[in-house]
């Protein structure tokens, strides 16, 4: 039985906190910096960065304010940061729509299934590609990397998926995106950085390749795997186009397409005739705002806790280059 104490062998890059730590470490003072010009610069800089924060956050706050406001105030153009005519009626309205919840549940199911499949596929292939002695490794890497720069395009993909009979099934969303080459390369680079001695020792102890992967490599890569899960989960959670293209049954759509159909009701590419009907846009202003808030909420709630994993994931990818 091989046991590995992950705290002792974890290479530096494993700890996502550390990578972020390094990123956030203030640069050591470059000597005495008290010239007048530099002090002015510091003030201007603080103002500019505050501006960045305000501009980034404003749309969120605006949507929240609109979602809690009375329709009449919105149409009058009086809602910016503070809700006017505060009420939560529209929230109740949207949340009582069973289609909204069906689609929300679909999003959760699609994300979980797709992420699980993507993780298995990516981990297996990345592990194979990390073995330098493997014959044909370069060809395998080439097969994956080439698809980053050239792809079949929308039409052949659509023709393929429909002829495989995957329309109106979860597989049209899950399978065509089962491996992201970027994530694959990040994992491969990480596996390459693991000490070989551990795997050799495990092999001597009688573990086969599958055992080594499951019992040694994966436990050593927990932090990285968390990062990859997040990368995949966010991309599947946010995706809408595959469902939009391959699904025509309302009850199968993810919530992103629900939102899309709601906003496209007025100014969408599909509804050519409805463009000029500005009234329709306004009658649903609160409804849209509420749906946007409810769709964005999970991401906003999780974001503060997982942000550093994303950052470290990007940095791992960058090390590989």
């Amino acid at each position, binding site marked *: 039985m091989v046991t590995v104490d992950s705290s002792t062998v974890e290479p530096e890059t494993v700890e996502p906190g550390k990578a972020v730590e390094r990123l956030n*470490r*203030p640069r050591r003072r*470059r*000597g005495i*910096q008290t010239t007048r010009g530099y002090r002015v610069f*510091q003030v201007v*800089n*603080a103002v500019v*960065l505050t501006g*960045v*924060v305000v501009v*980034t956050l404003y749309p969120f706050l605006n*949507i929240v304010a609109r979602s809690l406001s009375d329709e009449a105030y*919105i149409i009058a*153009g009086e*809602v*910016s940061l503070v809700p006017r005519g505060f009420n939560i009626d529209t929230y109740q309205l949207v949340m009582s729509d069973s289609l909204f919840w069906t689609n929300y549940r679909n999003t959760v199911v699609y994300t979980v299934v797709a992420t699980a499949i993507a993780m298995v596929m990516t981990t297996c*292939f990345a592990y*194979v590609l990390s*073995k330098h002695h493997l*014959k044909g490794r370069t*060809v*395998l890497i080439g*097969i994956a990397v080439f*698809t980053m720069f050239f*792809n*079949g*395009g*929308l*039409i*052949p993909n659509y023709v*393929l998926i429909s002829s495989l009979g995957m329309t109106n099934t979860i597989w049209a969303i899950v*399978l*065509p995106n*089962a*491996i992201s080459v970027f994530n694959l390369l990040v994992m491969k680079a990480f596996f390459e950085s693991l000490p070989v001695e551990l795997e050799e020792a495990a092999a001597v102890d009688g573990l086969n*390749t*599958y055992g080594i992967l499951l019992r040694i490599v994966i436990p050593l890569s927990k932090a990285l795997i968390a990062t990859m899960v997040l990368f995949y989960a*966010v991309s599947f959670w*946010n995706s*809408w*186009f595959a469902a939009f293209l391959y699904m025509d049954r309302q009850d199968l759509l993810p919530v992103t397409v629900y*939102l*899309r159909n709601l*906003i496209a009701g007025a*100014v969408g*590419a599909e509804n050519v005739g409805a*463009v000029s009907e500005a009234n329709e*846009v*306004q009658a649903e202003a609160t409804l*849209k705002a509420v*749906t946007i808030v409810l*769709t*964005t909420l999970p991401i906003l709630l999780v*974001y*503060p806790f997982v942000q550093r994993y*994303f*950052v470290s994931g*990007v*940095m791992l990818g960058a090390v590989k280059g």
Partner: protein
Amino acid sequence: MSAPTTTGPPPVAAEPAGPAPGARRRTRKHRRSWRQALRRDWQLYSLAILPLLFFLVFRYLPMLGNVIAFRRFQPGGSIFGEYWVGLRYVKMFLTDPTFWEVFTNTLILGTLTLIVCFPLPIVLALLLNEVRTRRLKRFVQSVSYLPHFLSIVIVAAMVMQLLSTDGTVNQIVQATGGDPVPFLQRPEWFRTIYVSSEVWQTVGWGTILYLAALTTIDDNLYEAARIDGANRWRQTWHVTLPGIRPTMVTLLILNIGTFMAVGFEKILLLYNPLTYPTADVISTYLFRMAFQSSNFSYAAAIGLFEAVIGLALILSANAISRRTVGTSLW
């Protein structure tokens, strides 16, 4: 061993045909070592089977599927089409005035996005790098990364709310004495809207790699520059920027590679027939060709053209950068 097939899951690059005797010896040796490799590493190869199937079916098959650009295609028929029609569809789009219109729009939107969205993360990273208060820096970073994680549908929805006749932008317009403008229905505004929402969503996240590169610059270089009498500005110019140059070049190449594929999904969500004159790009045009006019072969021909240009762009950007600055993707 009779047929010259390559056994085993990993596809093997075909041996180039050389002089007969030498080639045969090489092939035999090659094959024997393949057998050894398979015997030793079959468990590893077995792990690669499903991923390889994925790449073959969902990545390489569609590439082959592009032959329908040169064949008559019937929905429901073979995915490779029915019979050859040669360059009919290529000629068709080359003589299609709408195609050239959307081609121009693609170039303009791509160029604008590149010019605006490439340098801004560098500027923001440099500004963040000068922040002395660690808390403030971390807060600004966290906030500015946030939009990156939103679905493009949410971003489009927010843009629509902000730009609607009762939205914030029009409130400002009215406060300064103007009349409300239905921005999303005005072609002259589309490019501005597209690029600024792109800035909002990508600039913060784009700083990560630069900030990482900035921490790797040796402090002694700044020390030396200061002894040579360089002020802050000159230190930035002569030490900081050269220090992050490899990162800049790499990201520039990657940006150029996605130049042709300008935000298809966002445009699809934000445009409408009124804004087609500036908003319609190659990818949205071929989308409509396929799914509204059911002209799949024509759309595939346009798509292939776009993909080939994209590939050519990234290859040449990479080659140029390798020659001139010595940085390349591979």
